């Protein structure tokens, strides 16, 4: 029981639709888990249950050894979360918004300025710090979302499509950042980009129709493709794994 993220037998019903159907996930510090799956497979729903935003119909989640149902506030102190779509308050400037999240996350006012500087530097926000969020491009909005997730330097990071909408340079930068942080933190990120998994993840978890259909290293994942397949080997494996489970069974 030294897993930083410990989710067992998570199930989520929306009405009688099974969005997540028995997902268990244990992640240690130093692991970067790439969470893959077709659209509607249940990635976002699973991550929402990991953060406690959604209450599971069944199953338990504990973060840093704290049950999120029993001690939600304590558990929330241990993670940073980038929700799907990187929501933020449009009328605030980047600086105001990050200060708000920093304060709400309990960073002492004396440390706030330094944290803000370092985080702005890490995701390259310096130029837009005093611009209102509604005037930012999609990629910059995403970076603001990443910044708010890491501002308090949490041991757990849960990020729903962190590189969606970023240009190739920024994708590269963000992957570097995630890789660095991954040496000490437990990170779960969802993505539709399979190269990303190769580039940053130490582990691949594939979900299809609410169930985990693969859990292993990127190397093992790729090796599942027959040797006759030369290019896009991961895409090939992904298609094979998820082909017969694209729709959630009612």
């Amino acid at each position, binding site marked *: 029981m030294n897993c930083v993220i410990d989710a067992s037998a998570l199930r989520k019903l929306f009405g009688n639709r099974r969005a997540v159907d028995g997902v268990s996930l244990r992640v240690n510090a130093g692991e970067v888990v790439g969470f893959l799956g077709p659209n509607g497979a249940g990635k976002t729903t699973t991550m929402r249950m990991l953060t406690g935003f959604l209450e599971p119909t069944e199953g338990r989640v504990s973060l840093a050894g704290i049950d999120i149902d029993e001690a939600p506030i304590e558990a929330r102190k241990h993670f940073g979360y980038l929700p799907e779509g990187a929501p933020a308050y449009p009328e605030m400037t980047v600086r105001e918004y990050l200060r708000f999240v920093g304060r*709400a996350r309990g960073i002492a006012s004396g440390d706030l300025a330094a944290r803000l500087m370092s985080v702005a530097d890490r995701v390259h926000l310096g130029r837009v710090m005093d611009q209102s969020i509604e005037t930012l491009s999609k990629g910059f909005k995403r970076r603001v979302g990443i910044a708010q997730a890491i501002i308090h330097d949490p041991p757990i990071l849960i990020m729903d499509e962190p590189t969606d909408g970023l240009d190739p340079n920024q994708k590269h930068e963000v992957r570097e950042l995630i890789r660095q942080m991954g040496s000490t933190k437990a990170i779960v990120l969802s993505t539709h980009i399979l190269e990303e998994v190769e580039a940053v993840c130490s582990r691949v978890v594939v979900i299809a129709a609410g169930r985990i259909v693969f859990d292993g290293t990127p190397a093992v994942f790729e090796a599942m493709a027959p040797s006759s397949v030369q290019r896009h080997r991961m895409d090939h494996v992904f298609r094979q794994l998820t082909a017969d489970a694209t729709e959630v069974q009612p």
Partner: protein
Amino acid sequence: MTSGSGLRVIFLREFKSYFATPLAAVFLVVFLFLAGIFSFSMGGLYERGQADLRSFFQFVPWLYLFLAPAIAMRLWAEERRLGTIEILTTLPIPLWQTVVGKFLAAWGFSCVALALTAPLWITVSWLGDPDQGAIVAGYAASAMVSGIFLAIGGFVSTLTKNQVIAFVVTAVACFLVFLAGYPVVLDFFRGWMSAGVVDAVAGVSLLAHFQSLMRGVVELRDAVYFGSAIAALLAATTLAIDWKKGT
């Protein structure tokens, strides 16, 4: 983090956000304009030959009937529409503190609007010799009414992502709560209900408590009424968010 500091952080962000959009300016101008019109022309501040703010305070609840839903409709509907509710409810701040913080910010904003009517007060004090105690009581009663309307509106806005629906439902709900004390309504009940029921209806009515506060007698039961009504609505809001946030 010390307990209650989460509430403060939420309150400050919210309160500032009212002034970050043109909405605040529009709201304040409309409020002051209507308050002026009501008290000077319709209320006959001059004609009655008596310098006080009674007519102004009689109109304030009617103003709030439209303006409180306009403030409150954003409270939670907007968070859900933007998706920021996902950030807000995963911060290490208890939900009740978030609910209270947001409510106090909205209430604070409506009290700013009220405070900006001070020139009326100065004018009547300069023209005559009004009962200052009654004016203070009138302001307190008005603030209470806006508090209740905003608490109702905050609750309603948790149930929908659509701000227009939130506005209309809140306005109707506030109207009914307010109207419950009008003689027309009470007479209607008096016709076929026991005196106990009529008293009960009059008891929940905002109007009765408003008027009793206005008379300048701050009674314990009025304070209890406003306090418990707001607390109950905020508790309901907290439960509703927990229930609706993921949908």
